[in-house]
């Protein structure tokens, strides 16, 4: 139905930041800016609050450990002051006993502060270890449930990569940011508050000086990061160009080699590679240059504190221990300040991710199933469409009024030009879409009165777009009947004409295949999916261009096999090669969403019909 484009270049996002390490995050464009941050934040918070206990522990631990940490400079200062006092009172000299009297108590306190802080920090980290991931897991489980409930409309309208990113990357991002970011934020905030309060208590003047000089570095950081944005974008742009070119050349590898273009493409690659080198050098430099710049400003603050503190100490308004404590505070609050800007950015990214997940979870779902389902135990396979109205968009009807009946065991062929609604017709029978009017009945029962699973179990379907999952060939064939024996699998494989090529593969039926890898060709994939449907052995079979990539000879053989296996079954066949459907009991000719002609091959060909026109256009070319 829709084309799916793979993007092999993954975004490299290594958010690895604790002590203000550079984030080597691609500057992702608009993606990282949430549209409605308040609503998403609220919802994310509500989910987070489900783990209230854990959050409480984390918060408590943050307060305790950072509180203790904030006190350590004062304790150290106290120890130094007592040492200086003791020396000036008693002079130099003394053993460890005297020392214990002088600094024993403060040092004991210091050790306790650090060790208790460590214990709480462990408690915090250990608790946090699962919080983010549990949240992500719960989101993912909701997503996988949602996937089963979304109407097919949704999948028609959205690209696979887009859906995939919402389900895999986004929860990961949220978990990662919660784990590192939120923890850092809580700790940085506590640390900052405690340190500032203590500084003000110790000396308001010094506190103001330190805060003033530190805020310089905040502004500087902001200013620099504003300046550097353009450089980042340039780097991203060039990198995108280069990677795009490489992707293109690798995809067209066969052509490049068969046209001897190797030298030309190497030349182009070199030019782009050189440009990328220049851009990358610049952007890496600015990322890493920020840190010496910030460190420079922090150290400036350190110098000012040392000088002013020294002057105060000489005046006697401050003890040496306190000066020392202030010097430590400068270092202690420098990190939280630089981290806060990182946190704000990453929190925004988390919210944007959460928003995308919520959007997905809020998509309208399929119409709920009937609460009183009927059952068809032994289906005969009679199908009736009665005045069916349908459109993919409510205001744009594709089918106005479709009616026809199929008796049990009949083969129905549906033909017509592209866009006539052939696939839609069988999709409606599968109840992939809801009708806008009319009814579809199987064995006289409205399919709305059946459960979807009950309906679909009666019907086997083979689509033009083959779908194989990564697994062995045997597993793929057995997808419709998971308990099938190997004999059954080989039997249907033979009937679907795939046994031969399966045996040419290195591992035979145990060969692992997937849609991506080129182990098997498109035609071979179609044969496998036919085998799969045959194994499921349904009462009703739908073949939607099932053999379009298979050569005509094999197609004919497969059809014979299917016909014999479908004896006593109703089947719907959509085919663009009219030669393959001549034996149908009923041919429905469709055009622009309506059935324009009905009848057998002979009946339709005898009259001056659209069918006859289609049929002749396919064959008159052969003789010419």
């Amino acid at each position, binding site marked *: 139905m829709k084309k799916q484009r793979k993007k092999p270049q993954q975004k490299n996002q*290594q958010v690895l930041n604790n*002590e203000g390490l550079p984030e080597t995050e691609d500057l992702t464009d608009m993606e990282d800016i949430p549209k409605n941050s308040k609503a998403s934040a609220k919802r994310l918070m509500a989910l987070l609050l489900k783990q209230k206990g854990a959050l409480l522990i984390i918060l408590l631990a943050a307060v305790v450990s950072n509180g203790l940490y904030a006190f350590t400079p004062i304790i150290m200062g106290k120890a130094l002051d007592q040492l*200086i006092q003791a020396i000036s009172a008693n002079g130099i*000299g003394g053993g460890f006993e005297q*020392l214990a009297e*002088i*600094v024993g108590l403060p*040092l004991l306190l210091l050790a306790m*502060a*650090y060790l208790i802080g*460590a214990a709480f920090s462990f408690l915090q980290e250990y608790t946090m*270890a699962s919080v983010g991931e549990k949240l992500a897991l719960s989101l993912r489980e909701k997503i*996988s449930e949602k996937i089963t409930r979304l109407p*097919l409309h949704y999948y028609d309208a959205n690209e696979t990569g887009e859906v*995939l990113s919402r*389900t895999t990357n986004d929860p990961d991002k949220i978990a990662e940011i919660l784990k590192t970011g939120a923890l850092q934020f809580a700790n940085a905030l506590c640390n900052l508050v405690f340190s500032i309060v203590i500084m003000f208590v110790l000396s308001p003047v010094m506190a103001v000086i330190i805060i003033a000089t530190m805020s310089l570095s905040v502004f500087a950081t902001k200013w620099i990061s504003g300046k550097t944005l353009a450089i980042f974008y340039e780097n991203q742009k060039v990198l995108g160009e280069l*990677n795009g070119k490489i992707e*293109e050349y690798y*995809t067209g590898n*066969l*052509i*490049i*080699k*068969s046209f*001897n273009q190797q030298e030309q493409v*190497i030349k182009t690659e*070199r030019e782009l590679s050189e440009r990328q080198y*220049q851009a*990358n*050098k610049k952007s890496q430099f600015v990322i*890493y*240059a920020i*840190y010496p*710049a910030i*460190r*420079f400003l922090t150290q*400036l603050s*350190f110098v000012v504190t*040392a000088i002013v503190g*020294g*002057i105060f100490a000489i005046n006697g308004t401050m003890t040496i221990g306190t000066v*020392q404590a202030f010097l430590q505070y400068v270092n202690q609050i420098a990190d939280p300040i630089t981290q806060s800007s990182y946190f704000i950015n990453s929190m925004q990214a988390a919210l944007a991710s959460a928003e995308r997940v919520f959007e997905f979870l809020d998509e309208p779902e399929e119409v709920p199933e009937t609460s009183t389902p009927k059952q068809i135990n032994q289906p005969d396979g009679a199908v009736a469409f009665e005045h069916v109205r349908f459109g993919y968009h409510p205001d744009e009807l594709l089918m106005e009024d479709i009616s026809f009946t199929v008796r049990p065991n009949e083969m129905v062929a549906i033909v017509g030009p592209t866009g006539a609604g052939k696939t839609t017709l069988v999709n409606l029978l599968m109840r*992939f879409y809801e009708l806008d009017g009319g009814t579809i009945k199987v064995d006289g029962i409205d399919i709305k009165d059946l459960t979807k699973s009950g309906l*679909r179990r009666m019907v*086997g379907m083979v689509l033009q777009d083959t779908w194989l*999952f990564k697994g062995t060939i045997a597993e793929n064939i057995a*997808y419709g009947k998971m308990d099938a024996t190997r004999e059954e699998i080989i039997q249907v494989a033979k009937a679907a004409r795939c046994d*031969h090529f399966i045996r*040419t593969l290195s591992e035979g039926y145990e060969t692992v295949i997937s*849609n991506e*890898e080129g182990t098997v060709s498109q035609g071979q994939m179609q044969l496998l*999916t036919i085998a799969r449907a045959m194994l499921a052995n349904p009462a009703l079979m739908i073949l939607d261009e099932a053999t379009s990539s298979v*050569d*005509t000879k094999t*197609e004919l053989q497969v059809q014979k096999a299917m016909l014999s296996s479908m004896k006593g079954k109703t089947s719907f066949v959509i085919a663009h090669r009219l*030669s393959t459907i001549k034996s149908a009991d009923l041919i429905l000719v469709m055009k622009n969403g309506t059935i324009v002609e009905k009848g057998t091959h002979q009946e339709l060909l005898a009259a001056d019909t659209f069918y006859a026109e289609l049929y002749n256009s396919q*064959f008159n*070319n*052969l003789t*010419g």
Partner: protein
Amino acid sequence: MTYLFQFLKEKKTMLFLIILATVIQSFSMLAVPYFAAKIIDDGILKKDLMAIVILGLQMLAAVGLSGLISLWASYLSADLAALSGKYLRDRIFDKTQVLSIRDFNRFSTASMITRATSDITVIQQTVIMFAQMILPAPIIAITAIIMTIAVSPTLVWIPIIAMVVFMLAIYLIFIKASPISKTIQKRLDVINRIMGEAITGVRVIRAFDNSEFERKRTNQAFLNYADNVIRLNKTFAVFSPLIWSIVGISMVAVLWFGSFLVLNGEIQVGGIIAVSEYTILLLIALIMSSMVMVMLPKMKACLDRTQVVLDTIPEIADETQLPALQNPDNPAKIVFDQVSFSYRGAEESVLEGISFSCEQGKTTAIIGGTGSGKSTIASLMLRLYDVASGMITLEGTDIRQMTQHQLREAISYVPQKAILFSGTIADNLRMGNSQATSAELEQAAQIAQAHDFITVLAEGYQSPVAQGGTNFSGGQKQRLCIARALVKKAPVYIFDDSFSALDFKTDGALRKALKREMADAAMVIVAQRVSTIMDADQIIVLDAGRMAGIGRHEELIKSCSVYQEIVASQLSETEADSL
């Protein structure tokens, strides 16, 4: 790894300058606590205001020097990192240009793209992280130890023990964490794959009523992933408390033993402050580097992936000593002589005992069912693979006896899958013949039935082609690919199932034009439709890798049962009878 080391060896001077800058930087950084200690000892304790100001200014100078040198080191590191990426990328790209198609496909296109793009980005980022975060750690550690010794040799064991304990603990954490990280990556790949399958296969899943099965399968994958991530997080939960404890115990130790020395007049109070700062700065450097170390296994994986490519020896190598060859007058352009081919380890061979000759001015068609091996014949002609036994000759020379370049100059090829490159239509058409005039382009396009739709475009032959040719329909792309092949002048043209996206009318017109305009060439047409090949000079009928018949349409229709079946499946009964 080898290639990165090779690169670093080439950039010895730069590496040396980075180390030098880092040494200066770490000394000037550690000078700050040194001066702070002096301010206390020489300034405050001696109540010397002047000394405080002078020392303050010296400290400022140290800060300034440290800042400038850091900037220089950052610049050098950025340069080195960017260069390392360029170095590896260029080497990989060159390599992929000499690898055979099968060598290349063994990696899969997607994986090859990753190796040349995002893997390189990771390496680039890790190189700069290494230079900026890991490399300074040992240098700062040594500097801190030297400066501690300068204060008091008896205190030096405190930072040393702290360092050793920290490294030991980190080592243990990483030992425990690294298998978990590896599992996590695998689990994540599984999630991506299963989710991708669940989304692309939504119709099939619902048709087989397997939604519940898929939901359980995905949830299981999610759970496996989450369990491992939590385990990893819990392993790393000891990291912060570990730092707390080591820092705390070292501080207490510095104060305790430092105070003892002060009490006994061996050092001054400032010495305690200096040593405690040195110890903390040393530990911070170690912490930073250890956190970046997490990146190293990832970089190692990327390096290994690139190395595999760089180490690959092309399976099809040109003979170094090539005999004088090429005999353009030989009318037997391509000859298959008892050629067999099979994939390694396969039960059945793909081709067996194939012999035929493509003559100048003649059209050779190859027809057969899905998997009959017809496209493999075209691949063998281009020497994308080597034959298992038998021989293929071009104008009388074994194609293994000529360079691949020579061989492919002699063959113009239209692939099964239409691939175009971004640029203009003219750029694409000139691919095989950069000297082609616009008249030649037009002529080729006319034969390929592409001229009409090209001229309708606003910019004609200068119209842009998007990457992958997405702005053209399947049939248009195929016709452009045919035109591209026709612009290239070669004695042999191969059409590998290239008419399938064309409607019958265009197909017919194209073949007529080909016959008329390309009368001198040897043509090989691989096809599924009988109508496409029924007027060929010889038709080779393949069935499960063996030749079921060879001859003209009229002969085969009488003698070859496989051919009869193919014809019967495509023609209406009356038409088949009338033939």
